[in-house]
């Protein structure tokens, strides 16, 4: 069918666009090293006395004697094979340092995402349906305050109230074993979610309000459809587009905020690793994390673009141009 072929072509275009964007961003991240003052090789090993092996590894990875494009190509080749260079702080490969820290961060991000989706969207729905009532105003107030509570402030309040005063949750560290880890991650996840929850609530609420005003909603009611079904099938369903779009845009902010939350709660993860490595001048690790965060943002938002036609079939007709 022609429409299937058109959809496949538009998906292919998006994937190509993603590849180009990833290429450009990786180039930017790579060349940022050359913005640093002084000799780049000296910059990478400053404050340390590297072994000859390590120095050779740097020269190998960055190829400081090659022309710039060749250097980039070698570096990119390494990155694509999972070789991000060596960490001088940990004396192992950057990849293995990241790999050991990743599960904790993924758990934190996963739990936060769940909270944002359930509470954020839920509160947005309630805020729209109860507009003008006490509940509706409460949701609005929550949005205004929540959007202004940074994760490091939320962390302090949560630790001192739920952690220290009430003693319900541990206030520091990752925990061991799945249940204990989950217990440890609750407060960090809330701290990480607050701002983004508020944003998702706001977008959900305004998208729901926009859709509630549509004539087809009144028409569905005039056909005797139960109100709950109309809200679900015609209001929430149609409001999904903006909600999914904003969730995609939040990804980068969330990943960066793990640095704050993990530091505040003394957790060991990729976020706290980033801060530690900036602090202790391990640029190779910093560069790798920056690259991964940016790549995650690009990939997630391409994925959002790809599923968007399923959410709004009109986009499909417009040749995928949005």
């Amino acid at each position, binding site marked *: 069918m022609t429409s299937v072929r058109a959809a496949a072509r538009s998906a292919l275009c998006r994937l190509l666009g993603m590849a180009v964007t990833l290429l450009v961003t990786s180039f930017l991240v790579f060349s940022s090293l050359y913005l640093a003052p002084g000799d780049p090789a000296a910059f990478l090993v400053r404050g340390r006395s590297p072994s000859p092996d390590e120095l050779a590894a740097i020269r190998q990875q960055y190829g400081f004697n090659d022309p710039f494009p060749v250097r980039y190509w070698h570096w990119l080749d390494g990155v694509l094979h999972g070789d991000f260079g060596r960490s001088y702080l940990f004396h192992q490969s950057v990849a293995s340092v990241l790999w050991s820290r990743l599960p904790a961060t993924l758990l934190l991000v996963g739990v936060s995402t769940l909270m944002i989706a359930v509470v954020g969207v839920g509160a947005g729905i309630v805020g729209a349906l109860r507009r003008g009532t006490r509940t509706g105003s409460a949701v609005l107030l929550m949005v205004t305050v929540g959007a202004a509570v940074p994760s490091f402030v939320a962390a302090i309040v949560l630790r001192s109230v739920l952690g220290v005063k009430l003693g319900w949750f541990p206030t520091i560290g990752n925990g061991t074993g799945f249940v204990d880890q989950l217990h440890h991650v609750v407060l960090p996840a809330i701290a990480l979610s607050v701002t983004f929850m508020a944003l998702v609530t706001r977008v959900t609420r305004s998208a729901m309000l926009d859709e509630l005003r549509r004539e087809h909603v009144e028409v569905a*009611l*005039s*056909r005797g459809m139960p109100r709950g079904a109309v809200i679900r099938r015609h209001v929430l369903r149609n409001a999904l587009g903006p909600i999914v779009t904003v969730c995609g845009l939040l990804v980068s902010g969330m990943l960066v905020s793990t640095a704050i939350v993990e530091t505040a709660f003394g957790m060991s993860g990729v976020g706290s690793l980033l801060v530690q490595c900036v602090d202790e001048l391990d640029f190779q690790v910093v560069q790798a994390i920056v690259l991964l965060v940016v790549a995650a943002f690009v990939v997630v938002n391409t994925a959002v673009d790809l599923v968007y036609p399923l959410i709004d079939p009109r986009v499909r007709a417009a040749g995928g141009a949005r």
Partner: protein
Amino acid sequence: MPLLSYEDLSVLLPGMARPVLDGVSLSVAAGEAVALVGESGSGKSVTARAALGLLPPGATTAGQVTVDGCALIGADPATVRAVRTGKASMIFQDPRAAINPVRRIGDFLTEALRLVDGRGRAEAEARALDLLAAVGLPDPPRHLRQYPHQLSGGMLQRVMIAGALTADPRLLLCDEPTTALDVTTQAEIMAVLRALQQDRGLGLLLITHDLDLAAAGCDRIYVMYAGRIVETATAAELLATPRHPYTAGLLGSSPPLHGAPERLTPIPGVPMGLLESAPGCAFAARCRFARPGLCDQSPPELAPVGERLVACHLADSILSEVDR
């Protein structure tokens, strides 16, 4: 007892100077096609929606609307839903706005059957296919899988009509069903409506601003101005000899379908807004016959003039002039 009857229905919105509807009485018998004609803002859409229990938010009402024995004003939700799901259906002006753009046509046609009547998907779809064929769409199985944006306005209005028929209503309310369509499609849609109405013996209330369209498709016509019925008669009579100056004005301002086009005489002025009110006849300010001291003093009542009802202080005295 008529299928649909309005008894002295008044609707008042907060902050408005005059009622949106002011003592509207109107009836449609089973199998009868009736038109309600008026300019935009005259209250005709509010009238039609009241028959489904859809009133503007914050409205206060007086009088009653009855559909097939169910009184709607002050009715409990169950009664309102009973009317909406089996007695009356509405066809809206703009099918693009009235059908959810992100759901398939099939979903629009079957959702009420599945979610309200609790029928199975296959049964609901079979019925939807029948109805799509009945409204004259060429390829029902394909349309069922299509999205609204893939259909033209005329096709979509046929879908809308099919959707209105899924619940097997006895009364069809049509709110400007052809206004959003181009001229050739308008005639087709009216033909479909008329055929369905006669085949199925439906009561039909057509809301339109187009007096000729009303006369072509309906048995009786009510003319509405500023929330009041100003004249009602059979279609033929009304078109031949309008008695109310406003009806005459409506006729004078639309080009004749047959015969040589004469000079059109538009009605001077603009319709009275909801923020204005007049102690006398609402039309007096635009009426070339209006007599100071009479028409601007008290509102005229709907009174019999021959076979019909007219609300005009001068209904008797200006008969001869309007005739010319």
